[in-house]
C-alpha cells in the first residue's frame, strides 16, 4: 500500500486551503483555548512555588540555626507542645499539656526535607541548587495555629530564643494569593473548557467540510478499491495539523505572556504579582504539554469526523 508522502502532503494542503476560513478559525480557537489551559497551569505552578512552604495549612515556621544543639531544638519543641512529647516527625502532632494553647499542631522538617523544599522553590535557578548542600540549610518546625491572626504574637514569643534563627509567617499578600489563585484557576479552566469544545467542533467541521468538498472523489476512490486508510489519512492529518499549529501558537502566546507579565511585575511591585515567579523551564514543559494536548484534540476531532462523515 504505497501511501506516498507527496500524495498525502498535496491532499492535506489542498483540503486546508479549500476551507481555509474554517481551518483558520479552528486553529485560532485551539490556540486560544490552549493558551488558557497553559496559562492556568503556569499560574498554578507559580502560586504553588510561591506558597510551597505554606501548604497543608502551615501558618508559622520556626527555623533553627544550622549550629543549634539538639537540646536547644528540644527546648523550643517543649515550649510549643509541652514536655510530655519528646520529639515530632514529619507527621503533625497536637500539643499535650503544658504546650501553647494557640498551637494546633506541629511537625518537624529536617535538613533533607528543607533541601527538597529549597529545590522546589529555586527550580528556575539551577546554579543555586547546585552549590547548596542539605547541611547548609536549617531544620525547622512547621506550626499550624488555632487562629491565623495569632501568627505575629506567637512568632514574637518564639523568636530570639537560643538556637532559633528566624520565625516566619505568610504575609497578607501570600495568603490572599492562595485564595485568589483558586478562583482564577477555576475561571481559566472553565473558559478553556468552553473553548476546547468550540475548537473540537471547529476541527470536526473543517474536516466535515473537507470531506464534503471531496465527496465525489471519495466515492470514486471507494468504487475503484482504494483502502480506507488511503482515503482517511489526508483528512486525519488535516485535523492533526490544525491542532498542532493551534497549540504552537498557544505556546508562543504563553511565552510572550509570561515575559510581558514578568516585565510588568518588575515595574509595578504589587505584592500580588511579585510573589509569583515562572521559570522558562516551566514554560517549556507546559508548552510541550500544550502541544501534546493540541495534537490529541486535532487527531481526536478528525478521527470522529472521519468516522461519522466519511462512512468508509
Amino acid at each position, binding site marked *: 500500500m504505497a501511501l506516498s508522502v507527496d500524495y498525502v502532503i498535496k491532499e492535506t494542503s489542498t483540503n486546508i486551503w479549500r476551507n481555509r476560513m474554517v481551518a483558520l478559525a479552528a486553529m485560532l480557537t485551539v490556540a486560544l483555548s490552549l493558551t488558557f489551559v497553559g496559562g492556568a497551569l503556569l499560574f498554578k505552578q507559580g502560586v504553588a512555588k510561591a506558597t510551597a512552604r505554606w501548604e497543608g495549612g502551615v501558618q508559622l515556621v520556626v527555623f533553627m540555626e544550622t549550629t543549634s544543639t539538639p537540646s536547644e531544638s528540644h527546648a523550643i519543641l517543649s515550649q510549643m507542645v509541652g514536655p510530655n512529647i519528646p520529639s515530632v516527625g514529619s507527621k503533625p502532632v497536637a500539643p499535650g499539656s503544658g504546650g501553647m494553647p494557640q498551637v494546633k499542631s506541629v511537625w518537624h522538617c529536617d535538613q533533607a526535607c528543607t533541601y527538597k523544599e529549597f529545590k522546589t522553590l529555586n527550580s528556575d535557578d539551577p546554579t543555586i541548587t547546585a552549590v547548596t548542600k542539605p547541611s547548609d540549610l536549617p531544620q525547622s518546625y512547621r506550626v499550624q495555629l488555632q487562629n491565623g491572626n495569632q501568627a505575629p504574637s506567637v512568632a514574637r514569643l518564639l523568636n530570639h530564643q537560643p538556637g532559633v534563627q528566624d520565625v516566619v509567617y505568610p504575609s497578607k499578600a501570600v495568603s490572599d494569593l492562595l485564595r485568589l489563585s483558586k478562583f482564577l484557576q477555576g475561571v481559566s479552566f472553565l473558559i478553556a473548557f468552553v473553548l476546547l469544545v468550540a475548537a473540537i467542533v471547529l476541527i470536526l467541521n473543517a474536516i466535515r467540510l473537507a470531506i464534503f468538498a471531496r465527496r465525489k472523489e471519495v466515492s470514486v476512490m471507494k468504487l475503484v478499491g482504494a483502502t480506507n486508510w488511503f*482515503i482517511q489519512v489526508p483528512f486525519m492529518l488535516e485535523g492533526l495539523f490544525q491542532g498542532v499549529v493551534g497549540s504552537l501558537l498557544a505556546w508562543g502566546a504563553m511565552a510572550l505572556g509570561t515575559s510581558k507579565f514578568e516585565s510588568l511585575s518588575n515595574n509595578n511591585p504589587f505584592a500580588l504579582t511579585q510573589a509569583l515567579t515562572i521559570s522558562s523551564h516551566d514554560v517549556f514543559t507546559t508548552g510541550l504539554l500544550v502541544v501534546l494536548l493540541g495534537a490529541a484534540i486535532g487527531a481526536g476531532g478528525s478521527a470522529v469526523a472521519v468516522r461519522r462523515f466519511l462512512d468508509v
Partner: protein
Amino acid sequence: MIRFDNVTKTYKGSVVALRDANADIQKGEFVFLVGPSGSGKSTFLRLLLKEEEPDAGRIWVAGKQIGKLSSWKVPYLRRNLGCVFQDFRLLPNKTVYENVAFALQVIGRPRHVIATQVPQVLELVGLAKKTDRFPNELSGGEQQRVAIARAFVNRPLILLADEPTGNLDPGTTQGIMKLLDRINKTGTTVVMATHDVVIVNAMRRRVIELDHGSVVRDQARGIYGYGA
C-alpha cells in the same frame, strides 16, 4: 465467477428488493439484467460490490464468498470489479487522462505502471486524441467511454454496468455497446442492467429478468421481454 445462492435483500422500511434470487454467471459471459423499475437490478449489482449486505443467502465473486469478507478486505474485492453508471461519475476538475489515472493512483500503483496503462486503455476506448479534455468538453458518449476506461484500466475480472446507456441517444448507445462487447471478448465478464429493448434484442446474449426481486427468467441468447 459470480454466484447468487438464495439471496434476499430487504431495505429498511420493509422494501423487499431481492427475494430468494439465484444466479450463476461463468467467466467471460455477457449478461443483461432486465426487469421493471424497482425490480432489484441495481440492488443485485450493489450486493456484488458489497455496498449492501444481503439479509439471507450467499454470494460468491471470483471463487470467494463475499459475505465472509472482513470489511478491510472490501477494497481488494472492488479491484476485481470495474463499475460503470448511467451518470458517468467522472471528476469534473480532472482531465480525461487524470480521471483514468486516478483509479490507479488511489490503489497505490507505481508511476511507471500508470504511465503505460492509461494511454493503452484510452486507445482501446477510442479517446487517445482527447486525453487533455475536461469531462464537460465531451459529449455524453465520450464521457461514458472515459468511465469505461477508468473501470477497465485495472483489468478487472468483471465489469458491472448499471444502465450505462440510460442517458445516451440511440447512435451513441450503439458505440458504447460495441465497446463493451470488445471488452467482453478480452475475457472480462460483463453484467449490465438495462431498460433498452433495442440493444438487448439486437445483441442476443444471456438475459436474467427480475420482477419484484425474484429471478423470473434466465435465458441464453434472450430478448428484452416476451411482451415488449
